[in-house]
């Protein structure tokens, strides 16, 4: 066929554009603050993974040593010790694991539920959309802290209940974001093309719509982890979070209130840990949003 021959002859087109992921990575790297966020988050993740392995929970993290209590930062205890003689550095590091893992698990759960609800609402529209979104609105109307308090108060103070409480609060936000992203893609011509070749709605949602709506969902995921960590810290601060003696930044902050005048280092380090974690996750999330935005290309 002359057409084929003609095309084969002139194959000197160099495919310059690399894959999209590489493109996004490059743009992310150009953003200095995003790179900073990424590095810090990476360090935090490493700490979260290795802390429980390297540190001895029984002997280093929770073992009380009243003789050593309230020591200011020194060589043996770089962050000082708390009111029960425990090393603050060790506890801060261990708490990283607690906070990050709860954050990630919560987000995975709420993201999954949010994906299902949001894509159904966004793709089908009409009554389905209305019912789902009104239910989401009801949940959004309830202040997160209040909801968490109710759940924890009625079901008890455990990690699982905390995750449930946070996840329930986070689902509406994800559903909203997913719905918006799906609505943008739903009218694309390649979705119509999928219908034209006989694809079912479920196939279209999973293979065509969702893979192309990832950008805002990825960004929201990063930011939501930060939000969950902050919430947990807040709940722990008022005593409804992670039960003692497991270390948690918010709980450590709360405990340090009584000693804030003379032993300010006790609140300084947990507080800084919270701040650095939230800040780096937000910087990374913002950087991802910019890097994934097709209009900025």
């Amino acid at each position: 066929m002359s057409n084929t021959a003609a095309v084969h002859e002139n194959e000197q087109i160099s495919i310059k554009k690399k894959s999209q992921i590489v493109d996004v990575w490059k743009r992310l790297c150009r953003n200095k603050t995003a790179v900073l966020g990424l590095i810090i988050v990476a360090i935090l993740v490493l700490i979260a993974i290795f802390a429980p392995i390297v540190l001895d929970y029984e002997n280093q993290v929770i073992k009380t040593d009243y003789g050593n209590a309230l020591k200011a930062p020194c060589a043996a205890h770089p962050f000082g010790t708390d009111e029960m003689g425990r090393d603050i550095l060790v506890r801060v590091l261990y708490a990283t694991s607690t906070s990050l893992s709860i954050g990630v698990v919560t987000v995975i759960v709420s993201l999954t539920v949010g994906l299902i609800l949001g894509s159904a609402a966004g793709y089908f529209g009409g009554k389905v959309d209305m019912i789902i979104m009104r239910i989401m609105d009801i949940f959004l109307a309830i202040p997160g802290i209040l909801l968490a308090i109710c759940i924890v108060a009625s079901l008890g103070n455990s990690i699982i209940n905390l995750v449930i409480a946070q996840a329930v609060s986070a689902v509406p936000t994800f559903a909203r974001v997913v719905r918006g992203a799906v609505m943008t893609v739903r009218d694309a011509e390649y979705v119509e093309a999928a219908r034209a070749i006989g694809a079912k709605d479920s196939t279209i949602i999973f293979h065509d719509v969702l893979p192309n709506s990832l950008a805002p969902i990825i960004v929201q995921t990063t930011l939501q982890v930060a939000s969950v960590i902050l919430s947990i810290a807040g709940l722990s601060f008022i005593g409804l979070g992670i039960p003692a003696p497991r270390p948690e930044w918010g709980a450590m902050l709360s405990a340090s209130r009584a000693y804030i005048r003379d032993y300010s280092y006790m609140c300084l380090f947990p507080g800084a840990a919270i701040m650095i974690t939230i800040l780096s996750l937000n910087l990374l999330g913002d950087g991802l949003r910019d890097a994934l935005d097709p209009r900025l290309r």
Partner: protein
Amino acid sequence: MSTQPLLDVKGLKKYFKTPKGMLHAVDDVTFTIEKGKTLGVVGESGCGKSTTGRAILRLLEPTAGEVLFEGEDVVKLSKDEMRKKRTDMQIIFQDPFSSLNPRKTISQIIADPLKINNIITDKNQQLERVRELMETVGLADRLINTYPHELDGGRRQRIGIARALALNPKFIVCDEPVSALDVSIQAQILNLMKQLQRKMGLTYMFITHDLSVVNHFSDDIAVMYLGKLIEKAPSEELFAHPTHPYTQALLSAIPIPSLDNRKERILLKGEITSPIEPPAACRFANRCPHATDRCRSAEPQLKEISPGHFVSCFLTD
């Protein structure tokens, strides 16, 4: 040997609800296409040609009318039955940028119809069929794992064609398949489509606004204006004897790339009227140089003025 046309569209209507009233996108369109032939559908923006194509394939649900494909009315089929019919009726889209999923490789895009309809389930056989189709449309084999955004418009459109051919359809709606391409690439794609038609016995509905292209490519041409079919004739006849005043204006408006045969332009005055709740009159009356009172008070019907040549205009009386 049956003389039944492959596609028989009767009184097709597609209306959209808007806050201001019903938008008559396609209004009572009737035509037939014989097997192996090409019907060109031309008109300017807002005439309803794309909507007609999509309504025939039920990518948009028709408001009324019948679409008889090989004698069977596809409008009456259930969602599942229609999905099965899709193996016979396919579409090539206008925009090679937006009609391909940016996250799938060429191989995946072309294999999709085979996977989804369970035509070929074995992965190796799928790959073979994909390679076969790529060869047919002139895509180099080494491009098999590339993404659409890495290729130019002409190549992307070939992917769209390969995808439409994957199911061995009998009928393909081509919605402005070359409008987004450069002139020299347009020619390549048009030649390819013609070859495929001859080789595979395809029937095309070729939607375009480009009159010189449609003349070259179609056996018959239907002209649409504001949702109505106002003239239909074999291509040579339409260009030789355009009867409806709109068709005449349309043909005279084409810029001719030649210094010879320069003719006087018919310039239309005014603007196109609204398709929302149109009054019962000829829709072209406000711009027609020959409009009479009758044209402004009643709607003309499609009449056959010579064998195969249909016009909807009171002036033919």
